[in-house]
């Protein structure tokens, strides 16, 4: 069953999965990281409370977070077509992946920043630091190890979302598992794709955690 064609298909599947996952994670962080910062900063206990911005963002994040990814993916198909030109393939899958994971990332970043001792922020304020200086010099650097741990979690969640995208022809390992493993009862391919997904998740998780540990100066 494992001829050269199947092996090549699975090889491509790995690359497509990694491409979708890593690109989506990157773009989702470009959106989610500032969003998380704004959520903390504009909170009523934040360094620059702005109630309306905070409320609006919270509502948007909550709505997007409460739509199951499978549904969201289908729901945003028109938008995907408008941006990419098609709703099929790995590049098109990036659109729902980013929309689905950016709010989740914003919450991860928010909770990472909230772990910072209030006293440290107060100390910066006592030195006359302006809100932007506090964001760049206190919030982000002090939360960095925790944000990195969060990104290890985010990347594995996005990987599992990307596998789901196989249902609507997103390609990658998930697509192969669904088409060959599920619809054609090819247990061999099913087993191999699942095993590969497990390995990829483990590797991404470990690399992320390792980078986070190396960056944390709180431990001796």
């Amino acid at each position, binding site marked *: 069953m494992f001829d050269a064609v199947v092996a090549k298909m699975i090889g491509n599947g790995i690359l497509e999965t990694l491409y979708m996952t890593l690109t989506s994670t990157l773009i989702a962080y470009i959106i989610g990281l500032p969003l998380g910062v704004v959520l903390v900063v504009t909170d009523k206990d934040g360094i620059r409370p702005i109630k309306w911005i905070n409320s609006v963002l919270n509502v948007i994040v909550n709505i997007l977070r409460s739509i199951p990814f499978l549904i969201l993916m289908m729901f945003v198909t028109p938008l995907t077509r408008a941006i990419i030109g098609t709703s099929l393939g790995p590049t098109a899958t990036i659109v729902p992946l980013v929309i689905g994971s950016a709010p989740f990332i914003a919450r991860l970043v928010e909770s990472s920043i909230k772990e910072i*001792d209030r006293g440290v922020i107060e100390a910066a*304020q*006592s*030195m006359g*630091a302006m809100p932007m200086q506090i964001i760049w010099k206190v919030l982000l650097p002090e939360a960095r190890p925790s944000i990195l741990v969060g990104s290890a979690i985010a990347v594995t969640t996005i990987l599992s979302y990307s596998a789901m995208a196989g249902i609507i022809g997103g390609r990658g390992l998930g697509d192969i598992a669904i088409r060959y493993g599920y619809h054609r009862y090819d247990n061999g391919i099913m087993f191999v794709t699942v095993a590969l997904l497990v390995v990829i998740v483990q590797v991404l998780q470990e690399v992320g955690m390792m980078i986070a540990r190396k960056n944390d*100066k*709180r431990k001796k």
Partner: protein
Amino acid sequence: MYYGKRGDDGISTPETIVSLKNLTKTFPTADGAGFTALKDISLDIKRGEIFGIIGMSGAGKSTLVRCINYLERPTSGTVLFQGKDLSQLSMPELYNLRQSIGMIFQQFNLLMQRTALQNVCFPLEIAGVEKKERIRRAEELLELVGLADKRDSYPSQLSGGQCQRVAIARALATNPQVLLCDEATSALDPSTTRGVLALIREINEKLGITVIIITHEMAVIEEICHKVAIIDEGRIAEYGPVSDIFTHPKSDAAKRLVLPQGERTDEFMGGRRCRIVFDGRSAFEPVISNLVLEFRHPINILYANTKEIDGKAVGQMIIALPEDDRLAERMLGSLHTQGLSVEEVTGNV
């Protein structure tokens, strides 16, 4: 420049650096009534002083110190810093002014992801000081606090006392006029506390920086403060030179702080007692022996200790007065004529 040496009062009138006028702070509460943390506080702090603010936890002292640099905005009243009304400043002006007021905290509040040197550099980055100059200044300050060899250590690698020294160096980086200390020694053990207090005194004397110390420990006030304000339930119960408050506490709050606590024995609770305070002159005179010889009546000493306050040896003693009221009155009279500070103490002392 006036350096606030002890006992200089009255010789010259140094300039008031921080002035609080009728300060009130009310925090909103769920029931809408509001919690009043500070009630009508007025204080003048002179340049070069080490000024203590003492009170029980919840007395409002932390709120008070945060009003001085406007981390908390008072609900009413004015804060004048070098004559400038803080409420009239724009935000950029306030950020600027905060660079003239250093602050240290109970939990040190160092940046955990930065080395000692980088922590000291932090306020200089905020002030826009150029990098080479920042490092030069930070090294100089670490030298001053005795941690030059720890420049590349992270806070997690330092002891509590070392962390507070880094915090002090950081607070001094922008050459502040005033150093606010919010329970700065409360998380430290007694010997580390003495070291940190000695450093604060050295900074006050060498650099002429005015120090405002918030604490709940009378020992801290006795050790380094020139003046003290006792804050109780959001109000100032009493304020003046530390030696005056120690010798003649007037308010109940002051008496609670000054009089020995937890060392009484309950069987003496019934009788009359009096507290004698010895100043530098009388500390070595055999007052009690003289009293015993004069009245031929035994005297029970319930408590005694000696402290150094404002550079002078000051002792206090609590003795039980005889049951015989006439004899007790005569003893009190005799003590008074010796020029000692004597007062009867009652209640739960």
